[in-house]
């Protein structure tokens, strides 16, 4: 099985430096593409590859690029931005990619920026990822020294500068328009859409924001073609994906696997199954903003459409496992604490609704629940639905609560009636 994204990673070894990456065939796509292939053709190949946004949206990357106004229609500055603000609870795939093979990301940025004809790129990295920040800064400097960045890259006439920006530590910066505000030095609150960043983004200029993993796929798609990439996936899905599992499994971690593999295989084979003495109860398929998949349903495919078909989201593809010895209400309350704290404070229902949700869940968990609390929580999942709040943060927060209220109704009721948590 091919593992293009992690092919250069060896357990216990430092990532490849510039020379090593070059020896491993890296930057070949840059050499073959810049000035030789029309930018529009690069975007077309990416569209044909079926690559979808790996930050959690799954929107076709090539189509996003193609929706950007042409250079003729919008002369002037345009930007390519890598969203490396990985703060989704339970998610550590971008960290692996940046720490494991930083030049792969740089190469992806060069090709992506070329495709959208941007001469400036930013990598917005979560501030706590200091190892990744240092590695990326070194990778940029080394690539620049080798003529792979800067003016007239490899004589192609193409310019690109990459800036590695360390975020200041807010979850909302992972929302692409909040990221743009933060990058501009403003408060990290989302912007109203439309207009989309591709027409009015960083400092009002056309801007594309892509996730780290998405960008890391680009060199391989360019090198090997769309058909090769599509064939990597399983059951009609395209490419590989970094999946992950955390929780009480035998081998928690991240794994590069074909897109579309069943969740059961991910948990039972690659993560080694549950630790002895623990039973799988449910899992969040892709971070804290996705809903529960109950044990009975874990044959579902790990893919954007399959998860959407069951009313859930694949999210980041890094699953969090709920075992039978952890209180689901405590589990959900903990998630809601995170979201209430990370609400940017811009829109009222999220800012003031999430703390209410958190306090209610904590009261239930502490044995102070009241019979009407479940109606209230249920109402909240409705009030914090997509389109009602300003951005996707609160709807994401409601995914675990909404599915939790459906699947663990009896646990909620027992907490309220017995006025205690049976796990404590």
């Amino acid at each position, binding site marked *: 099985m091919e593992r293009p994204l992690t092919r250069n990673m060896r357990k216990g070894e430092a990532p490849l430096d510039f020379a090593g990456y070059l020896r491993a065939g890296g930057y070949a796509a840059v050499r073959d593409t810049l000035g030789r292939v029309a930018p529009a053709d690069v975007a077309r190949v990416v569209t044909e590859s079926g690559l979808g946004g790996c930050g959690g949206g799954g929107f076709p990357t090539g189509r996003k690029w193609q929706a950007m106004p042409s250079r003729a229609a919008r002369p002037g500055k345009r930007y390519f931005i890598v969203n490396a603000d990985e703060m989704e609870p339970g998610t550590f795939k971008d960290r692996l990619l940046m720490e494991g093979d930083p030049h792969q990301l740089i190469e992806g940025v060069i090709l992506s920026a070329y495709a959208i004809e941007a001469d400036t790129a930013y990598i917005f990295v979560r501030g706590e990822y200091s190892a990744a920040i240092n590695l990326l800064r070194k990778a940029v400097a080394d690539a620049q020294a080798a003529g792979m960045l800067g003016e007239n890259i490899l004589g192609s006439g193409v310019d690109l500068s990459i800036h590695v920006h360390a975020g200041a530590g807010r979850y909302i910066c992972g929302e692409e328009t909040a990221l743009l505000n933060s990058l501009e030095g403003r408060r990290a609150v989302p912007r109203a859409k439309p207009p989309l960043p591709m027409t009015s983004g960083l400092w009002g200029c056309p801007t594309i924001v892509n996730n780290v993993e998405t960008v890391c796929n680009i060199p391989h798609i360019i090198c090997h073609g769309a058909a090769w990439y599509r064939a990597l996936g399983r059951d009609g899905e395209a490419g590989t994906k970094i999946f992950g599992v955390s929780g009480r499994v035998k081998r928690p971690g991240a794994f590069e696997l074909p897109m579309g593999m069943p969740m059961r295989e991910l948990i039972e084979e690659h993560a080694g199954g549950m630790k002895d003495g623990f039973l799988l109860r449910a899992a969040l398929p892709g971070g804290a903003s996705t809903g529960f998949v109950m044990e009975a349903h874990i044959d579902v495919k790990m893919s954007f459409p399959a998860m959407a078909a069951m009313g859930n989201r694949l999210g980041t593809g890094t699953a969090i496992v709920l075992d039978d010895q952890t209180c689901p209400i405590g589990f959900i309350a903990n998630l809601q604490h995170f979201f209430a704290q990370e609400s940017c404070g811009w829109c009222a229902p999220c800012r003031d609704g999430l703390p209410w949700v958190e306090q209610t869940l904590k009261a239930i968990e502490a044995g102070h629940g009241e019979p009407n609390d479940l109606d209230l929580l249920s109402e909240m999942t409705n*009030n914090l639905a997509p389109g009602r709040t300003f951005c996707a943060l609160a709807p994401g927060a409601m995914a675990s609560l909404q599915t939790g209220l459906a699947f663990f109704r009896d646990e909620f009721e027992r907490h309220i009636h017995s006025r205690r948590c049976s796990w404590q």
Partner: protein
Amino acid sequence: MAVNIVVDGQVVPVQPDTNLLEALLTAGLDVPYFCWHKALGSVGACRQCAVKLYKGTEDNGHIVMACMTPVAAGIRVTIADGEAAAFREAVVEAVLTNHPHDCPVCEVGGECHLQDMTTLTGHTTRRDRFAKRTHLNQDLGPFIKHEMNRCIGCYRCVRFYRDYAGGHDFGTFGANRNVYFGRAENGALESEFAGNLVEVCPTGVFVDKPFSAVFRRKWDMRATPSICPHCAVGCNVTVQERGGKFRRVVNRYNETLNGYFLCDRGRFGMGFLESGQRLRTSRRGGRKNLTHGEVLDALAAVLRADGVIGIGSPRASMESNFVLRELVGAENFHAGLSDYEAAQLEAAIAVMKAVPLATVQDAQAADAIVLLGDDPLVVAPRLALALRQAAQRPPAALLAARGIPAWHDGAARNAATGQRIPVMIVSETPTWLDDVAAVVLREPPEELAVAVSACVAGAAHDGQAAAFARDLLSGERPVVVAGGGPALLFAAANIVLALRRKGVAARLVVLLPEANSVGLGMMDARRLPAMTDRPVVVLENDLSRRGIAFAPARMVVLDHIETPTTEAAELALAIGSFADCDGTFVNMEGRVQPFHKAIFGADDPPPSWMVLRDAGIAAGRVPAGIWATHAELLDAVGKAIPAFAKYTWPLTHGQAPTLPHRFSGRTAMDARFDVREPAPPVHAESPLGTTMEGWAAGEVAPLVWAPGWNSGQAINKLPRAPADVFLFETPLQDAPNFPIPLQPQPPRPAVLPEELSALSPAMIARRQI
């Protein structure tokens, strides 16, 4: 052209190019909102204005925020829909989880937008049982009281303070429900427009501090439409009082003038009304508390003298200046200005008669600005705020190209990053608008102004003047703002005339210092002689302040404040301030505006024109019975000054009530002295009555109030006010260029803080920081 939309099954005509919220409100429909403000645009933060929008006829509809939804012909929406209504109620319920239940002790209770919106959504019962978040308040200085626990996070304050008014020392801190609006540390707010926080806040986070000290409920105060007397912009205000005591002033919306905002000088300068420096009683030498009869006798005795000199004032009303002039004769009527001020005013009037003038809102709509000389923030603060809006307005063509509506505030600002209309400033000292200007030249402006007008006319020139001319010529509505001596005003006027000859609809703003500078300028007053041995009557004017060394042997001064001039007077006569009587000011746009008696105390001094008239009759200077009514007096002014003739006193069919419909305590407030029903004060001849009774024909609206809308936001529910009268509406056709005086101009006196507001305790406290 209005388009039709369907709202809850009814066809409603609305304006295109607006958002759905504004359209629904304008159509008289009730939709709750917090973060939206007509002047600040839409940002979609509060999620309160949810309505259901349908796509096509088969669609089940989806919830949208009305403020973020463009109006389009034929769209179908419902406000009443149960799902939308439930969501609106849920949003209010959520914000109230952190809002204290302190309405009974909150200054905003009863005129609170949050209360109104809560009622509108139908939310009544608290379900939240957890602790509310709390904040520490800050000391924001003598103007604004801070009560952060009340904050509902609508972001209007920062959007006004930073984005609109260009302030830097106030902002948003923290995140999530701990989001905090204040300063980095305790300290007085630095913006000259901080007082507007009181009115943009939908609840009681920012409270008018001087008002808080003499607080009464909105419904328990008399409200009177008036004109701010603190500069020549003449912003429309509402003065509120109770029990003869001034309480506060709030903005009174005027679409083409101040809109929604006042400056701090206007709002907090009104404290002068309660200052210890007020001249409350009349005196002759050491004899104080003269009776009205004694005042008239003494003044009549002076007026009988041959060749008595009258000195008018740019802060006295049209009426008072006119009556004094009529009593002493035009040849003996002097402006009471320093040589510099007199030369400036004479030049200004000449220019205003010949050149199309910009209103404040014209200036706000300008697409190119040349600012010459004085800093508008100092001379005409509200105009400066308007100019800032013009300077930072995203270019319309750019927004159209990107498909971004102008009301979409965040997107419009972002799209226009780094793109501004050309603003060019030539001033010897820094101005408040330097940061939004494309070009700032620190030099005397006269020479450049002359060169610009030549370049506009086609003269070859390299350098800045040519660049200025190019920017002005490429504008559709350029505005030239000039503040300075005659040479500058004439040169600025010539720029506008040259642009007009090229078919560019340019307009001019002439910066003048005082509330009725223009009115005085229309009086054809003489300049002051160096000295005189004739008796002198000084009207509401502190000559010493203007650096006028003028010490007549006999001097009578009529004023409502104590000044070095009243102290030097043989006879100091107490007359009413702008809040104690009716009168008329003409502002620097040439706009004629009435003010009305707003405060009804026990021994209110009469207006100066009435004292002068009665003494003049007693002295035999004018026939008995002359100017018997205010309307008659204005007729006489119109006959003497033809430009004024089109203005008539706004008499309605009956008098409008000035006490709100819920005014309470009328019979109880003085019960410790007298339990009988007090007789209402009589204020005939005014369009405004003195009681709760009466009926206004619609010309004057003392109160901003609509059913269910108790806060100032009720303005969105009210019909538009009638148009104002302008003195200089028809500029002379084909006016020739003004010759630029070459002789040296009078030296400019030092600029002092505005005279009346300087007496306000809050302003004094602010200046001492």
